[in-house]
């Protein structure tokens, strides 16, 4: 048994990496997170569990910035997230130090995905149990981007995506309702997607908006205002659906 137990992530007879798939299960149990890309904004929204009364909520920031122009939200094991985020932050500064340019969103996504993949093919380690949503603006071109990575180390760019709990319902909603938006409309679309699976209210949602000026976390009061707008629009749409049938 001396050297045959080094590797933890090994292939199954039918070509699966079970450890990676179990990691994806861990992601599915994590908090819902959604990201939507607009023409001049990218918005991240994360579910916040409001059951913990004594906890100081300011110490639990779910949406973090990796650099002035890149931010990350994740679903899954938060302790694993800390490690990945720390390494990504170091890489952002290291890149600036060696090439005098901030990272592009694709570069740092590739770096994080590369790290996640390394941990599926190394001795004595398990994969990271989280999927990330990475948003940002590329330096100089100011093109907005949204990327997603997962425990297997794959990554791709998205117009809108969701991960974590009930991500399928959110993704379905986004597929039905996505259109090119900008500014406040992008924020509203993100919150509407989150509200599909989360109890409504500013207390249960954390939202951050990335523009080419940088990342801005929305206050609870701001979110409440937008949620109220959305509820009003929903109620108006319901009412409009009912009245035509009454007139015939």
């Amino acid at each position, binding site marked *: 048994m001396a050297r045959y137990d080094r590797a933890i992530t090994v292939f199954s007879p039918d070509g699966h990496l079970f450890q990676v798939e179990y990691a994806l299960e861990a992601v599915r149990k994590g908090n819902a997170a959604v990201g939507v890309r607009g023409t001049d904004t990218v918005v991240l929204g994360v579910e916040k569990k409001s059951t913990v009364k004594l906890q100081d909520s300011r110490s639990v*920031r779910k949406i973090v*910035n*990796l*650099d002035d122009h890149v931010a990350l939200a994740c679903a899954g094991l938060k302790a694993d997230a800390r490690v990945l985020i*720390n390494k990504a*932050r*170091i890489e*952002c*500064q*290291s890149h*600036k*130090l060696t090439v005098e340019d901030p990272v592009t969103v694709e570069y740092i996504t590739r770096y994080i995905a590369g790290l996640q993949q390394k941990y599926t093919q190394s001795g004595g380690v398990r994969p990271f149990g989280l999927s990330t949503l990475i948003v940002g603006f590329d330096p100089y071109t100011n093109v907005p981007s949204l990327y997603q990575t997962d425990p297997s180390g794959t990554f791709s760019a998205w117009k809108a995506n969701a991960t974590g709990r009930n991500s399928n319902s959110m993704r379905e909603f986004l597929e039905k309702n996505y259109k090119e938006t900008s500014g406040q409309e992008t924020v509203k679309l993100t919150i509407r997607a989150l509200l599909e699976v989360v109890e409504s209210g500013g207390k249960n949602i954390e939202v951050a908006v990335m523009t080419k000026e940088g990342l801005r976390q929305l206050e609870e009061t701001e979110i409440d205002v937008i949620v109220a707008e959305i509820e009003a629009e929903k109620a108006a749409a319901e009412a409009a659906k009912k009245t035509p049938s009454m007139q015939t």
Partner: protein
Amino acid sequence: MECVFGMVGKGFALVVADTSAVNSILVHKSNEDKIMVLDQHKLMGASGEAGDRAQFTEYIQKNVSLYQFRNGIPLTTSAAANFMRNELATALRKNPYQVNIVLAGYEKETGPSLYFIDYIATLHKVDKAAFGYGSYFALSMMDRHYHPDMTVDEAIKLADQCIEEIRSRLVVAPQNFIIKIVDQDGAREHSWRRTTKE
């Protein structure tokens, strides 16, 4: 013949540096900015070996940024100064950086501060500091005219007197100088003192 000097005033700190980049008898350029803005409220004027200057100051700046991203708040000026000193000291007995630094910073809690950090990792918190051949003239001028709690205008006037002294008394005086200031509104360029256009 590089010179960097600085002083603390009422609610602000000033750093002045020459802007010449020289290689033996050749002047590469006369508009080299040697005062790096470390973060929102810190200025670092550096003089010495050009390669070491760039390498060391950029390394410090990226580490100061990293601290801010990791912890959500910026480093204090004192912490940044001590971090720099430690890096210089660690490299000293192996592969020393030949860089002299004047670090100026502003914090709401403690106000403006100035640190003298030389290439062999000496660290002093001071009200006025200077490096280079110009320091003989700048320090003497500041010893005579400096007083605590100067206004910006008084400090600029004193800086001008130092520059004037350096220009007239130093055999190969630098052509241009840059002045940067840091106060509660942040760290920024204040003005230039030019004799050549480039």
